[in-house]
């Protein structure tokens, strides 16, 4: 085994050297020949007389920036962000709250109390690290696995649980499946199920912000490694670059799109390698390292607001949970693999150890906050469960700004039908007039 690995490394190095020599020879040759660089409209580049193809080994892999090691110790003190103590504690509390909420809502789906759920295990650091580095005014276009951002922004567990139940308090009026949150007050654009559709929209929103007087806001757009294969993803990156938009693209590369591993999703160097190809400033970070995510987003935010240029961040992580409650991931990955990422490379213990090393957290606090956050979810669920579903007429509201006559007629038709067949529908679950 060791031998084979060794051979692999050797072969890899040989390839690398060849590729490098090809690469480095490019420049001197063109100057030697004293030929002016080409001036095609599509490329200003030097001419060469030797044909060279580039492939994925022509470039070094994009490195992964991190601040902490697995024990929460900071590598370089100059990289340690200066975050207020209270904020650090708040950040951690949100991660625990999120994790507790995931656990209970996941189970509640298993018990048939809600119809669907998606957990965020393993990616809590990306949510909280990025949210903390943004201004609350920045507009968020999320995919569906970023509820930690919502919690950090001030969306309550109650709001989230109400959405999952689709009850009368749900801001979305019970129209969407669970986990499709949205909150205008907190600048969180409502989530939809189609993947990557939010990406070109985020770019358009960034363009609108840029045109506002004295703009100091930006847009952050979250997406996954699977969504990055959609046409919308490419269009968004390209539009953002060509139209100079103040936007941060944050890719949560968690290794899986439902069951499809990244090895079957792409062949290049992850998502980050697409950034420079499209003229976008790019960085790759360790998504299990909250401080690294925080630093990357903070610096990206400053850059994008100041320069009206997009930034791409690829946060490497691992989707510890199943894709959703409709998925059992042990069908396509080993329990050992999941264990490794749960135990050794998880954002929550890393950040906890960091806080403990600063004397900001201890076992006692952990225990009491875990209990408190668990109780909050359970208490909220008990209340949410008892609430009525929205009035059935909400089914036909908000399609248009004003209800067209054809929809009015349909509402009337349903009303007449319900009068006759009221016992055939679960009307007692819905709010009445």
């Amino acid at each position, binding site marked *: 085994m060791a031998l084979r690995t060794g051979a692999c490394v050797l072969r890899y190095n040989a390839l690398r050297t060849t590729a490098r020599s090809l690469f480095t020879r490019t420049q001197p040759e063109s100057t030697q020949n004293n030929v002016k660089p080409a001036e095609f409209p599509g490329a200003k580049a030097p001419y060469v007389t030797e044909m060279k193809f580039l492939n994925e080994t022509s470039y070094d892999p994009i490195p992964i920036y991190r601040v902490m090691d697995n024990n929460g110790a900071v590598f370089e003190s100059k990289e340690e962000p200066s975050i207020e103590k209270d904020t650090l504690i708040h950040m951690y509390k949100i991660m625990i709250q999120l994790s507790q909420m995931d656990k209970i809502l996941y189970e509640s789906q298993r018990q048939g109390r809600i119809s669907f759920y998606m957990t965020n295990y393993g990616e809590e650091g990306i949510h909280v690290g990025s949210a903390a580095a943004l201004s609350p005014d920045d507009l968020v276009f999320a995919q569906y696995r970023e509820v930690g951002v919502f919690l950090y922004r001030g969306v309550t567990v109650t709001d989230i649980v109400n959405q999952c139940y689709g009850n009368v308090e749900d801001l979305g009026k019970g129209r969407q499946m669970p986990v499709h949150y949205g909150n205008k007050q907190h600048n969180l654009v409502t989530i939809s199920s189609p993947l990557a*559709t939010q990406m070109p929209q985020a*770019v*358009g929103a960034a363009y609108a912000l840029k*045109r506002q007087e004295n703009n100091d806001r930006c847009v952050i757009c979250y997406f996954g490694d699977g969504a990055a294969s959609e046409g919308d993803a490419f269009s968004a990156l390209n539009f953002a670059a060509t139209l100079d938009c103040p936007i941060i693209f944050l890719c949560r590369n968690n290794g899986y799109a439902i069951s499809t591993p990244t090895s079957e999703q792409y062949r290049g160097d992850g998502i980050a390698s697409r950034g420079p190809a499209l003229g976008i400033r790019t960085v790759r970070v360790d998504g299990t390292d909250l401080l690294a995510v925080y630093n990357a987003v903070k610096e990206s935010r400053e850059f994008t607001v100041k320069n009206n240029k997009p930034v791409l961040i690829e946060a490497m992580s691992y989707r510890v949970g199943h894709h959703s409650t409709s998925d059992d991931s042990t069908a396509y990955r080993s329990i050992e693999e999941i264990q490794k990422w749960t135990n050794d490379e998880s954002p929550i213990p890393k950040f906890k150890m960091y806080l403990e090393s600063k004397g900001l957290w201890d076992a006692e606090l952990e225990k009491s906050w875990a209990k408190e956050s668990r109780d909050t979810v359970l208490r909220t669920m008990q209340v949410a469960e008892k609430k009525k579903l929205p009035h059935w007429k909400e089914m036909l509201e908000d399609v248009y700004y004003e209800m067209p006559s054809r929809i009015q007629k349909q509402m009337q038709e349903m009303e007449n039908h319900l009068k006759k067949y009221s016992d055939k529908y679960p009307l007692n679950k819905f709010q009445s007039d």
Partner: protein
Amino acid sequence: MASLVTKNTTLLIKLIKNVTNNSKRLSSHFIYYPDNEVPVEGETAKMNMMQAINNAMDITLKNDPTAVLFGEDVGFGGVFRCSLGLQEKYGKDRVFNTPLCEQGIAGFGIGLATAGATAIAEIQFADYIFPAFDQIVNEAAKARYRSGGQFACGALTVRSPCSAVGHGALYHSQSPEAFFAHAPGLRVVVPRGPITAKGLLLSCIREPDPCIFLEPKILYRSANEEVPVGDYTLPLGKAQVLREGDAATLIAWGTQVHVLLEVADMAKEKLGVMCDVIDLQSILPWDEETVCNSVKKTGRCVISHEAPLTSGFGAEIAATVQEQCFLHLEAPVSRVCGWDAPFPHVFEPLYLPDKWRCYQALLDTLHY
């Protein structure tokens, strides 16, 4: 000498014949019936439909500082020249080219509208709108509904040239209105000429629902009218009765309105009967009331559109008419449409529901 003259004359005649044949091939399948009544008082100017659309966008950009206009090749004026001169007037940050990507254009427009800007997106040909279908149908149409009214993208208008042009074939001729008519939340609008184009486009831009504005491209230059130069809007969701009669109701939108106006004239001339001619204008939501009131009066109904027959929007109208006007009908509702084939190149004159096919359908309906 004489023979030379004859030879030259023959050549000349041949040339004229050639030109005539060519122009015949490229000529329209309809006579344009200009609107003679203006919807508002005040100064007018002669404009073709391209100029009227340009004028509506000019008014928008002038009065609404958040408004932006974008799409492929929009910067230099657009391939149909609808945005001509607007970049010079309002700057590159308000009138601009995007990369060549329809789904990107639609998504970008939705985002602009979400963040409070007025977005006018141009899709270069309606035939190329399908990559944007997901953004339009799954995102724009559902934005208000799915957020419980928190977010909406009503400030988005997607403009796109559509329908037959004489030589457009499969991918420069389609009329995709029925695809979008199946997406609650959208407004789908088709003008029939310069006056309606300006008024309806200004309504679409200001309407708090996302709009698909399909512009019959053959009318860009061939349709000329005295258009009010001031600001005016025309109501969305409302059909317009252009001719009144009692023999039958003829329903169309876009270019096809002009075909049916000619058919109504033919019926008057040849048969001595008068027909109601209705321009539906709004495909979604559509004006069921005007249509059904007319059919209740006439008892006969002919619907015509360029798009293929099967699942064309005529099907929805026919179904509604039979439901609402059943006891008034003297004949089955007739649909005269494009055939159920892709839009062909050299067969265009045979593919389109021209005045002869429409006239025959009217005859059949009258004599049922």
